[in-house]
């Protein structure tokens, strides 16, 4: 089962979807993720921490605040640690993204996805996974190709 970005950030932060994220992460089956989803999860966590702790309201402001040390660089390791701890605690394995951009774009066109979402789908299919844990309705179109989880969210 491949874990999409939103599973990770809805587990780290308490939202109305945290129960679903916890359900996916607690599933007994093998769980995988790849760099595209990890990168997005680190970014969202960083953005949220910067908002809460330093009232940073945009990516542009965050970039400038990091450059000028208004936000200390340690916030980056904090965001990374939150994501890494979540993955390690739930025995999530990081798999390589051995997919071509051509395959990614073809999937994006076929299922009306944004490039990162299509890359996640391509990675999942290339590695023989048959389930996608996501809380993103953009993936609704792929329900015929992979099983969408958690079931309680997609029923």
């Amino acid at each position, binding site marked *: 089962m491949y874990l999409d970005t939103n599973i990770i950030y*809805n587990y780290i932060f308490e939202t109305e*979807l945290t129960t679903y994220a916890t359900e996916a992460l607690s599933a007994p089956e093998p769980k995988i993720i790849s760099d595209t989803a990890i990168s997005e999860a680190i970014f969202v966590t960083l953005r949220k921490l910067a908002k809460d702790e330093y009232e940073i309201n945009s990516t542009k402001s965050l970039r400038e605040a990091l450059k000028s040390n208004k936000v200390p660089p340690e916030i980056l*390791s*904090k965001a990374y640690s939150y994501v890494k701890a979540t993955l390690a605690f739930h025995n999530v394995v990081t798999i390589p993204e051995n997919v071509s951009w051509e395959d990614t774009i073809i999937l994006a066109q076929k299922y009306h996805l944004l490039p*990162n979402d299509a890359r996640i789908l391509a990675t999942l299919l290339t590695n023989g996974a048959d389930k996608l844990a996501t809380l993103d309705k953009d993936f609704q179109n792929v329900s015929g190709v992979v099983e969408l989880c958690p079931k309680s969210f997609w029923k």
Partner: protein
Amino acid sequence: MYEFLKALPPELRERFEVDLMKAELEKEVNHLIKTLKPGFGGKSTSKELDEYADEVYES
């Protein structure tokens, strides 16, 4: 924090610093794992977090 590093030649110091930073990261992760539970990062809404995820495409 690691005063002894200042005494090292720059090349060697840089290598030690990277190793020490990696060790610090690992320590931070291991510390978090001990008390990990859903929502450990604080409160939010899925809407807020989804908006930040969308910024990946806007930045």
